[in-house]
């Protein structure tokens, strides 16, 4: 029984980790290329979820909703870049933190204004509903498997894009030494716009994918944002590979930790105390993990800048 539970939790952790990766990928590139802290990246995820909720209510079809939501999140990301973020690149981190914090306040309230404060729900698409038996006696929802598949596909595409195309090369070069790339005649401003819009779309995609299994509500991006920051800091700022590995690690540590910390502690403590401490420690695990990583490797596991 425990192995089945462990397997289910591992799959949940993998799915959570891949969602985190989709969000962290854009964040780490924006951070790496332009040295820009974007706290408002989490609201892109929220916007993605809301757009899918709105479009699927309108079209009645999740697939169409997803297709409509992706270009909309892209356009929205570019709009924010042109209106606000562009003016913050040459400011210090403190100004960036504050201004993007203002964007969060505005958009969290904005979705409340447009869609109301009550959580929205999106039906799981017909074709992906139900569960499959992936091992004897182990049922797992098809939709969660679909998220895992989509996450892995996007990760593979991103890997190809970043490592084997010209624009990917420029992005990597930008993350390592942006002034040098600029000096070599690359329009770094436009490169950044592309990266930014693409990152916003990935975060929006993540939000759209989880909309059917989570409730779509104002502020849903805030906690995910913090986790995405933990991911990119552990992975090393600017590194896609680092973000991928760190996202999976965080997804697994968090999910598995929450369900097994009480059990593990039962080996040392009496049951009541174990479940009490276990529940206290589990949500702290990833932050302890992050502190430990930064203690030994102050610039993350795979730093892009040398």
């Amino acid at each position: 029984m425990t192995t089945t539970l462990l397997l289910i939790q591992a799959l949940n952790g993998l799915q959570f980790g891949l969602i985190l990766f989709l969000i962290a990928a854009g964040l780490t590139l924006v951070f790496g290329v332009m040295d820009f802290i974007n706290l408002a990246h989490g609201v892109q995820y929220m916007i993605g979820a809301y757009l899918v909720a709105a479009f699927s209510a309108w079209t009645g079809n999740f697939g169409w909703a997803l297709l409509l939501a992706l270009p909309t999140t892209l356009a929205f990301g570019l709009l924010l870049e042109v209106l606000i973020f562009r003016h913050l690149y040459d400011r210090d981190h403190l100004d960036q933190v504050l201004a993007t914090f203002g964007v969060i306040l505005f958009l969290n309230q904005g979705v409340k204004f447009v869609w109301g404060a009550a959580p929205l729900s999106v039906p799981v698409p017909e074709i992906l509903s139900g569960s499959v038996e992936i091992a004897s006696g182990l049922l797992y929802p098809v939709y969660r498997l679909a998220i895992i598949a989509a996450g892995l596909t996007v990760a593979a595409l991103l890997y190809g894009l970043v490592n084997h195309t010209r624009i990917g090369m420029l992005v990597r070069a930008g993350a390592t030494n942006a002034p040098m790339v600029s000096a070599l005649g690359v329009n770094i401003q436009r490169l950044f716009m592309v990266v930014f819009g693409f990152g916003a779309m990935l975060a929006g995609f993540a939000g759209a994918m989880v909309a059917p299994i989570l409730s779509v509500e104002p502020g849903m991006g805030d906690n995910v944002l913090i986790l995405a920051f933990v991911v990119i800091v552990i992975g090393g700022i600017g590194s896609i590979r680092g973000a991928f590995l760190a996202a999976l690690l965080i997804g697994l540590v968090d999910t598995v930790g929450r369900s097994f910390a009480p059990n593990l502690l039962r080996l040392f403590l009496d049951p009541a105390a174990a479940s009490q401490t276990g529940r206290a420690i589990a949500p702290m695990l990833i932050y302890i993990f992050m502190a430990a990583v930064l203690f030994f490797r102050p610039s993350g596991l795979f730093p892009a800048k040398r």
Partner: protein
Amino acid sequence: MTELTEMQSAPVPSPVMRLELVPIILFAAFAATPTLAAYSGAEGYILSLLTRVMIFGIAAMSLDLILGYGALVSFGHAAFLGIGGYAAGILASHGIEDALIQIPVVLAASAAFAFLTGAISLRTKGVYFIMITLAFGQMLFFLATSLAAYGGDDGMTLSARSLVAGWGVLKNDIAFYWMALLCLLGTYGLSRAVVASRFGRVLRGTRENTIRMQAIGFQPFRYQLVAYVLSGMMAGLAGFLLANQAEFVSPAFMTWQRSGELIFMVVLGGLGSLHGAVIGAAAFLLLEEFLPEILHAVSFFLSDDIRSRLAENWKMVFGPLLILIVLFARGGIMGLLRRGRHD
């Protein structure tokens, strides 16, 4: 330049002397409020609002000490508010209700947390420092939500305000107001002394150029750590007062949004002047309190329905305001005051 010329507000005294007027006016205004409020008819409301302003003033000022003078962007400063609040709440729930015991415990707990997390965080720089302080803040937040014995998610209610040597004087809102003002003045005086001392000059030196400070023989890490601990203790005191005022403490004391608000208060007031942070806290809290009403009043030409929706969604104005202040009002309120005088 003597005090006399300052009092007479001579035409062109040095900017330093003139700026010192600001804290005097500020604290005089706080001191005069209880008397004036008695005539206003809304005494309780004004006192409780301004007590809150002063408490957040202490917290913002403590952040200014490391942010303005040490360029350490701590994004987890709200954790100390939580430590102060929970230390008071937990002690009270075990029957230790005297502030003379609670405050030393609050200070010791904040100092211990600041020392431990600071020793780790200060190994990192720049963005990593912002993120690791954020992580420690989140850690404490989740710890508080899981403290089932002390209310968990819902927080805990304090049975009463703390006693002072067994005397229930703080139950009186006016007495509590004076206590908050006393704490504000005490922490302000202490911070001023720290900033003016050799220690403060070294701290500012590390803000400007860490490597140069190392080259002339200082260890920036030690100075930054001491400043971080000091700042944490002051914020802990603010947390103690905050929990006492509301007679309630909850994990919401230390959300990362609260840490962001503290940074905003400091920047709004103007970095690196200490009283600027207090002014920033006042501006922030008063704006938060009155923006709905201001919006309602300003939008008189719109229909009632839109007006009430606007007032309800005041954060949609607050957010862009924040962005505009960052983009266009460099130096915050103190910067504007300074600029106004030079022109």
